[in-house]
Structures are given as C-alpha cells and as structure tokens.
C-alpha cells in the first residue's frame, strides 16, 4: 500500500497497517522512515481535536480515519502551514474572543432537560478547525469569523443561562453570519456532526428578531440599478 503525505510517497509493507488508522500510520512512519515528519496528536480517540488533516481533499481526524491505498494526506487548508501537517491555529483564540462565545451574564432561569438538549450537540465541538479548512468564504476573506466560532456563539445565544444575547449578536454581524454562503461544507466535515450551517441560519433569524438586516440584500437595493416603478421608494 502506498500513501502520499505532503508530496512524499510512503510504501507501507506491513499488511496489518492496511487496517490501521491514519494517526497510527503517521507514528509508524515517524518512528521508522521519516523522523522529521511533523503532525499534531493527542487523545487518539477523536475528542481533543489535534489531529485534523485533509485526506484526498476532505477534512478528517487522523485518529478516526482508516487509510486506503493511494490516499493523499495534506495539511488543513486556509491556515498557514508551519511544517508538514502542522498549521498555525492561533485563529481559535482570536475568533472566539471576537465573537464573544462565552457566557457573559448569567441568568437565573431554571434549566430543564430540553434546555440542555438545545445546546448539547453544539457543546460537543472539539475545535479541530476542519470547518475553517473547508470554508470557501474563509478562503476568500481571512477576516471571516471562523465557522466554529459562529456556531459557538449560537450555542451561548441559545443557552437560557445567558442574559446578554445582544452583545453576541452584535459581534457576529460584520464578517460573520451574513457573509456565510450556507454552502454546508462545514457540516460535511464536522467530526462532531454539528449542524454549523443550521446554527448560522438560526443566528440570522435571531439577529433579524433583534433588528439586524442582511447587509448583502441592502447592497442589492442600494445600487444604481433601475427597477422601474417604485412607489414605496425602497
């Protein structure tokens, strides 16, 4: 079996390796063939978010991916490569701070089973950056708030413990929820199966309730295009 990692072809001779996950293979290669190979790892069980890479163009956690012949492994996209499969991830702190994805003002509401269920899946995010790598908007606009940060903002907006929704909604208006194309790439690659796109849509609905408009629609109406008769002066 052969796999390509960062443009270097590796031949895996041991038959046992054909059933192993990619992270184990990376360790084997590092121990035996190429000790300079660099990658991140942690829990080996899909919860620490360290080992996300791109396999044949699709974001995967290396620890949860069974390797196949001719697989091509590359680092996450949209983030600066430091070395081999290691990318710069300081975007995490920055975007979570920017989007105010924290409980800011604790309410005194009583929490029910349903309340917890509403934020259960969102609070399973492991910050692996797969959604960032798969995001076409982030590719075009590095100032776009990371999809996971938007999703996490919704997790707190949707949390009955939170009293301060307004600050959060204000934080995700620019380079945020309205810039998302709702392509759903983030959903496709999320290892925690979070409906990030749906959460961004929910944030839009919530924003509309609080008086925010989609600025992209306004841009359309504010251009010099002549729509003919316009009695209401839109």
């Amino acid at each position, binding site marked *: 079996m052969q796999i390509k990692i960062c443009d270097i072809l590796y031949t895996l001779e041991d038959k046992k390796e054909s059933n192993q996950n990619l992270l184990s293979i990376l360790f084997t290669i590092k121990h035996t063939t190429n000790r300079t190979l660099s990658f991140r790892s942690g829990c080996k069980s899909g*919860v620490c978010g360290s080992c996300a890479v791109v396999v044949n163009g699709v974001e995967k956690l290396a620890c949860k991916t069974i390797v196949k012949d001719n697989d091509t492994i590359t680092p996450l996209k949209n983030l600066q490569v430091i070395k081999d499969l290691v990318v710069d991830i300081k975007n995490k702190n920055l975007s979570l701070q920017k989007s105010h994805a924290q409980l800011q003002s604790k309410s005194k509401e009583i929490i029910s089973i349903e309340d917890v269920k509403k934020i259960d899946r969102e609070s*399973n995010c492991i910050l692996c950056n797969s959604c960032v790598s798969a995001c076409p908007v982030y590719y075009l606009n590095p100032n776009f708030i990371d999809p996971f940060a938007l999703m996490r903002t919704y997790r707190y907006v949707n949390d009955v413990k939170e009293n301060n929704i307004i600050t959060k909604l204000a934080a995700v208006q620019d380079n945020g929820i309205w810039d998302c194309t709702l392509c759903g790439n983030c959903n496709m690659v999320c290892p925690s199966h979070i409906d990030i796109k749906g959460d961004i849509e929910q944030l839009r609905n919530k924003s509309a309730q609080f008086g925010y408009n989609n600025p992209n629609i306004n841009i359309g109406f504010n251009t010099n295009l002549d729509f003919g008769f316009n009695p209401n002066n839109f």
Partner: protein
Amino acid sequence: MELVYDVLIIGNGGAGLSAALEAKKYSDNIIVVSKTTPTSSQTSQAQGGINAVLNSQIDSISNHIGDTKKAANQIGDNETITYMCENAADTIKWLDDLGVPFSRDENNTIKKRNFGGASFPRTCYSSDYTGLKILHTLYDTCLKENITFIDEHLVLNFIKDNENNTIKGITVLNILDGVISQIFAKSIIIASGGYAGLYHNYTTNSTATTGEILNIALNIGCELENMEFVQFHPTSLKESRILISESARGEGGYLIDQNENRFIDELKPRDEVSRAIYTKIEKGDKIYLDLRHLGIEKIKESMPQEYNIIYDFTRLKLENDLIEITPSAHYTMGGIKVDINSKTNINNLFACGECASNRVHGANRLGGNSLLEIITFGRVAGKNAGLNTHNITSFNTKDYQLLLLEEQTKISNIYTQPNTMNFQDIKIELGKQLFNNVGLYREEKKLQSILGKIKKWIVSTKDMGITDKSTIYNTDLKEYIEFKNMLDLSLVLITSALNRKESRGAHYRIDHLESKKEFECSSKVSKLDNNLKVELCK
C-alpha cells in the same frame, strides 16, 4: 527588566484553567503555558462525570467521604478528602454557573449516575462528554477574562533561587520556532497532568501525559509522593487502548468472558475489576463489554460518545455486538506533594490536578473523583497562588541569564550528539516492560529486572540523538526531551513500587499479598545530589 507575571500556570487542562480563573480574582497578570494547544488536554477524555452530593436528604457528604476513603485504602488524607467532598456541591455550582451544560432530570435538577465504589448515584454528568464540556467552558471563560495563553512551549527547567528555596520562573522551548526563553512569575502553579503516558502504547491517555514536569520538579528539590500508585482502567478497546468510560458499566453494562459468563460485580472498585479481567486474559480468555440488553435508546441517550467511539474505531454497534476490552494504564494517583493549600515544599510553587498528590485518592481513585479533584484543588491553587503574589514586592530577574545559556547549550548538544540508537524503539519497549512488570501485578524480581534495564537505557541515551535538525516544529527533539524524562521518572515509579512491600489498592504485589500496618501511609520521594530517596511518611 524582563516582564514578571503574577501567576504562571503550567498546563491548560481542567486544573490549570480553573486555577487561572481563580487566580485572576486575586491578581492581574495571569499566563497559562502549555506544550499542547488549548482544549486538547487529557481532561477532554474524562467522559463519565464528576461526583457531588447535591441532595443531602438522599445521599450525604459523609457517604461521599466514606466511599472515597474506602477506595483510598487507609492512606487517603482525611483533611483534603473532607474539603473536596464538602465543597463538591459548590464546585458543581461554579461550573454550572460558568455554563457547563450538565444533564438535567425531570425535576430540573442535575442528573446523577451510578459509578463503581459509590454507595449512592452521585456522579453528575453532561451526557458522556463531561470532561470535554467542562474543559471547553473553562477555556471560553478564560478567553472572556483575558487570560494569556502561551501554547506549544515545552518546559525545559525551572528557575529557582536555591538560597531561599524559592521558585522564580521557567525556561521553555518554543516548539513552533525552536527559540528557548525564560518566563518569570511571582507564583507558579504546576498543573501539567499525570504520568500514565510512561506506559506508552498501554495507556488510555493522550500522547502528552509523559510526566516530564514531575521529573524536572523532583530534580530541583520538589518532593513527590505515592508514585507507585497507578490506576489501570478495566475497559479500554483491545487494539487501540481507547477508553470506554465507567458509565458503560454504571448504566448497567456487563463484563463477560468468551463463554458469555459474568465473572465479577462490574461496579467494584477499578483495581479489583481490572485485576479480574487481566487474570482471565493472561489465561487466554477474551473479555467483552456487553450492553446489548440496555437497548439502543438508552445507550444513545446516556452514552452517545461511547457509541460513536466504538463504532468509529471498531465498526461494532453497542446494541448488537460484544466489545472486546482490556485494562490499560489510566490514571496516576501519585504526584507532587502538596498541602491543603496546594503548596509544594518550594516557596511560591503550587501544584494541582493529576500531577499533584492531594492524597484524596490514596491507593485507588473512585470514578468521578478525578474531575472533582482537579476543579476543587485547581481553584484552591489559583486562589492561594494569586494571594501569594501580594507578599512579593521585589523581583530580580538579572541573576538568571546564565541559566538560559546553560539550557540553550544543552539543547544545542542534543542536535550534535550521536544517533546510533532510535529512542522511539526504546520508548515502545519501555511502555511494554512497564505494563508487564510494573502493571496490575508486581513482584520484586521483575521490578529489579526492569530497574536494571532502565538504568542501562539511561546510560545509552548518549547514543540516542535526533534525526530532525530543524528548529521549526521539531517533534523529534520534543519527544527526545520527553523520553529522557520518562526514563528518569520510570525509575521513580519502580523504586517506589519496590519500596512498598505490601499490596494496597492499585499497587498489588504477588510477593506481598497483604496490606501491612507499617505501610499504612504515603511514600515520599526526594532527590538530593542526584540520589533518589523513597521513604514512608509516618
């Protein structure tokens, strides 16, 4: 003059982040330094829950204290256990108020599940992602509080004023660019995690739990304690050693042998269950976790993570299939000796979390008490480290330039030393040897044998170098530094295991089967002039 932080915390797991948040209340300039990235710590893997008595009409704090002491096998500390259990409800409230989404019951109170060794169901949980959700909530809150994070920096050494037995700072290697620098602080908290990673490839732990900070701390005069006590979790997946939480048994799962017979009460303390499983495996039997009778609905509601992990890593389904399991090194009860205020024997140096020994677990830890310990004493350490800064009015950093040069020279030498033995081969052998000889069953002959082997490997490290000569994200270098510390710390573990000539909790000697009165105490490890000393703290 170099910047001097108020409180420096080594480690960004549950203990470190709890400490950071509490320290922030009493001091200004808080920094969290870690060799990993935030939220990738071991805490993310704690699944099952966190113990607390929330309703004293049904359960009682004295029950919780009693269960914890019983599991600790007479060497738990009454004072720290009592503090932890009495404050458990407040700890849960603190987490809940920060935003941890604890699962609720029909009465809108926090839901509890049964765990091994507990006389009542008192393990509060958040589905079976409890550690993950706690860790991420703490991280979110730290960002809100503007805590500074310095990620992917490996601690090489402590900076200490030997004359006054006072900690001053740390020397770190920036993994990202290879630069070595010093960070100074008035108070330092070690929250770097445990050392089950010594059992390389035989542990449920993350790749980061290599324990180097404990060895470095020991070398500068810090006392360690109870290092022989290592918990082996009964249920990890056979090939990958991935943890299957105790919640699987707490919710009613069975352990069965290859004839599908149950052979032990699944909710006995972990050491007993693990030994029963290991004994059968040693005889050629296969042991399975059986949850088929629980039904898909209950499984998916109460342990979604287990369900996903097992499917992702084995393609088996809990509702239909038997899951083959084996015990693995999981948690280390020993660590840096601290008092009730989380202070070490070095001035201005504190420790909390799995790297610390608060003696709450004694010889064996109850499931659900580890998250409780790291949050409880993380907060204690943070508060005391923060308050401690008020006593420090002057701070000199000039005297320590030479130490930086020394550390830089040491690292430069690693780049040029011979590389005729691959240290990764020895690391794999170390893990195997420790599991087989310093594992669930121990005896003098085997312990002595592996002690000799490790001493030889330590001599051979001069022939083990690195292949990667770059400075950018050099994991070859990082792992080599970790490995050298792992060898030294393994000596501490084995020497402590040799010294305790009895069986107690997780430490089971087949040549000393009984618990003995003279060993009814903690063991203390210290190092003076490079001589390791293990003694009993009578």
